[in-house]
Each structure stands twice: as C-alpha cells, then as structure tokens.
C-alpha cells in the first residue's frame, strides 16, 4: 500500500492535478485557496509544466479557455469572489464545449464577505453563475483524500464530456491536514480531434468559438448540449449513504457540513433516534436516486453553511412530499454537532 502522508486539502488538489496529467495552471491568489497556486508554482517548472499568476481572475480563466481549446489538461482555482469574476469565462468555456477543471474553495459572501468557510456558492455552481443555458459538473469533497480523488475524477469527466468540472470545496477542507495516500491512479487520455493543435496542412481548420448568430443554429447547439447533460444526469451522480437502512429522519449535507452531521447522526443514534445521512458527492448532477431509495424517511434536514440553497434540490428530489427542514449557519460559521442534534430531535417531533 502507498505511504500515508499528511497534506492540506488545497495541496492535495494540486498534487492530484499533476498526477492527472495537468501541466497548465493559471490563477490569481485569494484566501483560503492560495496553497494550490503555491504548490503549482513550486512543482510545475520542475516537470515542464506551466504555472502562471495572471494579472486577474478574468485573465486567468481566459488563459484556461485558450489552453483547453488547444487540447491541454488545464485548471484554475480561486475562492468565492474570484469565481464571480471568472463567471464570464465559465460561460464561454461552456458555449465552446472545451474541458477544464475549476476549483472553488468557498468563503463567506456576498461581496468580499469574509475568509472563513462557507457553502453559499451552491446556487452559483449548480444553477449557473455565468449567462446562458449551461451546466457544470460539480463535485463536493468532504475529506483531504477526496480533494485528491475528485480532482482526478473531475479532469476525467471534463475530458469525457467536453465541459467544466468544478470542485466545490470550502475553507475548512482546503486548510485542514489529514492522512492521504496516492495510489497510482489510472489516467484515461481522450482523443481531442476538435482541438487547435495545428493543421500541418493535413486537415481542415478547427474552430473553437461560442458565437452563433443564427438562432436556429444556437438552438440546435443548446439542445445537443442538453442531451449530453441528460446522459450525465443518468450516469454520473455520486453520493454516500450513512446509516440510511432504517432511517426515519434523513440528514442531507455535503462537504464540511457532512463531517459535522456524521457526528450528530452518531449522537442521535445513541439516543435511539433512527437517523441517517445522504451525502451528495456530485451536486450537479444532484443524486435524486438516493432520495427515491430513502422511502422510510419521514422528514429531511438540509444542513448547510448558507441561508439554504441545496434545500431547494432536496425538495425537488423528494417531490415536496415530505417535510424538509433547514439547519444552517452562514457567514463563515459552522453548525456544531449539538445544533444539528437539536434539529434532528425537532424533526422527530415534526417541528
């Protein structure tokens, strides 16, 4: 077995990206994700890769767009306000069908907000952020090990479906250290016949662009893209069930919130309450199948570091047929296991 090493979540993302074959990183520093850029700055020059600190977030996402169009495995990372700046580029990347990995280590918002952990960019990541009809695959790691494994997965899905994968982490998972092992991951390489690699006078020019002035053409493009999205919804949803077999109360939480929720579930179980946890690992596609399987649950509790964003998807997944309660903190605060336990007890009483 590979050696267990201690690493920060942010560093694990950077190391995993390199192992996944990423040789192009463009970014701009912002707390609490700067370790990703620092790691890349140190490592990329030694392995023939590119690290570039751009003049802004907007420049860096457009460098990602360019390198992706050239067929490279490429990434950028930022935190909430920086992701807002990248939104335009994310829309262009979606409209051009090129693959990229974008990391958001979330902090409190809106505006400049704070620098403490948050999950309040859920809407931005899963419902849009940039303009137009588009989706991103959104992966939500809950441990340092998953920061690595989902980065590798994210690159793979991005190439497979020619779109953006976003790692939606938070300041806690980014800053914490845990043991991690890097098994030799099998990396799939994808043919990219659409890429701008130079024609060598042997083929027609490739064009990467998001401009379609004829409405019928743009409509056709959008319909095609949504066929792809439907396939992803069918095939790529990931989640973890925790003590769900006989659960009457179902806590739903991702990322750092799910870690705290697990403690609360264990405490409630010790009191004899039949409670379990669904932890979405993909936020888009949202794991609706997990909720269909949770047929014994009488009520759901969405635990979030936001004013309640994922709760809307929980209501949709349960077709609004059962009560869905919210247990939340925001602005950089994290609910304690006791707060979640209180919420579980209330849900048992139907409150």
């Amino acid at each position, binding site marked *: 077995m590979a050696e*267990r090493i*201690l690493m920060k979540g942010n560093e694990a993302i950077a190391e995993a990206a390199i192992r996944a074959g990423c040789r192009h990183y463009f970014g701009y520093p912002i*707390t*609490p994700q700067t370790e990703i850029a620092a790691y890349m700055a140190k490592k990329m020059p030694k392995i023939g890769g590119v690290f570039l600190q751009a003049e802004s977030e907007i420049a860096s996402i457009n460098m990602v767009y360019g390198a992706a169009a050239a067929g490279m495995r490429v990434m950028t990372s930022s935190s909430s306000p920086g992701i807002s700046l990248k939104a335009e580029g994310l829309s262009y990347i979606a409209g051009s069908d090129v693959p990229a990995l974008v990391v958001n280590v979330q902090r409190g918002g809106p505006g400049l907000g704070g*620098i*403490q952990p948050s999950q309040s960019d859920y809407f931005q990541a899963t419902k849009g952020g940039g303009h137009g009809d588009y989706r991103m695959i959104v992966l939500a790691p809950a441990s340092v090990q998953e920061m690595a494994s989902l980065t590798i997965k994210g690159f793979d899905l991005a190439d497979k479906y020619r779109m953006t994968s976003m790692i939606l982490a938070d*300041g*806690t998972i980014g*800053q*914490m*250290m*845990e*043991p991690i092992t890097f098994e030799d991951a099998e990396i799939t390489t994808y043919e990219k016949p659409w890429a701008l690699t130079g024609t060598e006078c042997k083929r027609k020019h490739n064009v990467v662009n998001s401009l379609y002035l004829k409405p019928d053409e743009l409509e056709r493009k959008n319909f095609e893209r949504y066929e792809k999205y439907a396939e992803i919804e069918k095939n790529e949803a990931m989640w973890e069930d925790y003590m769900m077999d006989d659960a009457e109360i179902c806590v739903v939480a991702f990322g*750092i919130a799910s*870690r*705290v929720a*697990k*403690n609360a579930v*264990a405490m409630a179980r010790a009191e004899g309450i039949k409670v379990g946890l669904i932890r979405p690992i993909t936020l888009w596609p949202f794991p609706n199948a997990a909720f269909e399987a949770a047929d014994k649950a009488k009520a759901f509790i969405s635990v979030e570091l936001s004013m309640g964003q994922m709760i809307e998807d929980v209501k949709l997944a349960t077709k609004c047929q059962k009560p869905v309660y919210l247990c939340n903190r925001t602005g950089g605060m*994290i609910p*304690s*296991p*006791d707060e979640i336990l209180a919420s579980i007890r209330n849900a048992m009483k139907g409150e």
Partner: protein
Amino acid sequence: MKTTQILIAGFGGQGILFSGKFLAYKGLTEELQVSWLPSYGPEMRGGTANCNVILSDTPVGSPIITTPDVLIAMNLPSLEKYVNSVVSGGQIYVDSSLISAKVERDDVEVFYIPATQMAKDEGISSLANMIIVGHLLENNPELSFDGVAEVVEKLVPPKKAALKELNMKALSLGKDYKK
C-alpha cells in the same frame, strides 16, 4: 473507541500550528486516524492562533473541536476563552510563565508549566511549545513519548537541521519536568 481532541491556542508566533502538526505526525506514525485544522487568516500574522488536532483509532468525523479532551493554553485570552469547553476529566496545560491565573475547575487535571521561562533559560526561547508537548506525551502513554525523534526528523526541514537537536531538547525538558 478512543478519540483524543486536542486544542492548542495562543499568540501567533508561539509555534501553535507547528506543535499541532507535530502531534498530528506523531499520530500518523502511530497508525492513528488524524486531522489537523488551523485557524487561518489575519491571526496568523500576530494576534491569536489556534489549532485543532484529533487523534483517533476510528475515522475522524468533524475536524472542528467544540469540546476538547486536552487544552494547551499559551496565553491568558486563550485560557479564558476555552477553559470551560474542556470535557470533564480532561487535561489543561498552562504556560505558567505567561499566565498567572489558575484554573478554577476541579473536574479537570491541570498542569502548570513555566515553559516560556524554561525555554529562555536553556537558550531555546522559541520552543516553549515543544516543552509543553513533551510533558503532554509523557502524561498520555497511549500517545507515547517514544518515537519523537522520528517525527522531529520528518518535520524540521534539512535547511534548519540545527533545530532538530533543539526540538529534542525541548521535548525532553517537558518530559522530565516535575513541579
């Protein structure tokens, strides 16, 4: 199931995060599950710093500590802030050269160590943190003092090799400290 939650708190610059890292690596070499969570942001540049370390023989749930089993307080504001959060039967380590206040609880074990003064006397003034860690390891056989050299070796960068011996010295001072 045995889980130890250690909260280390003090000023930025006292090596709060480093001593947490040391305990996390110690746990790693003992084949335990560990998590290390620092406070981050402006407090790293002076002001207050704290660090959450969890060592467990089962997977770590939340890395955030609300009720520590062990508190290391390296300044008065930290002691005042966290003293009542320590679980009954827990341990509190107080750097008594910086904190003259006493802990007014009789359900916890309290260790007063004049670590900052001891470090100064020995010419290792930046290593009060490791004196306390040495004492903590000596008091907690399940974490064990054995094997500290291996961890020091791992944590001190080659460029600062001279610090290895000094860290070992600080750990031993803490181990042997009797009040």
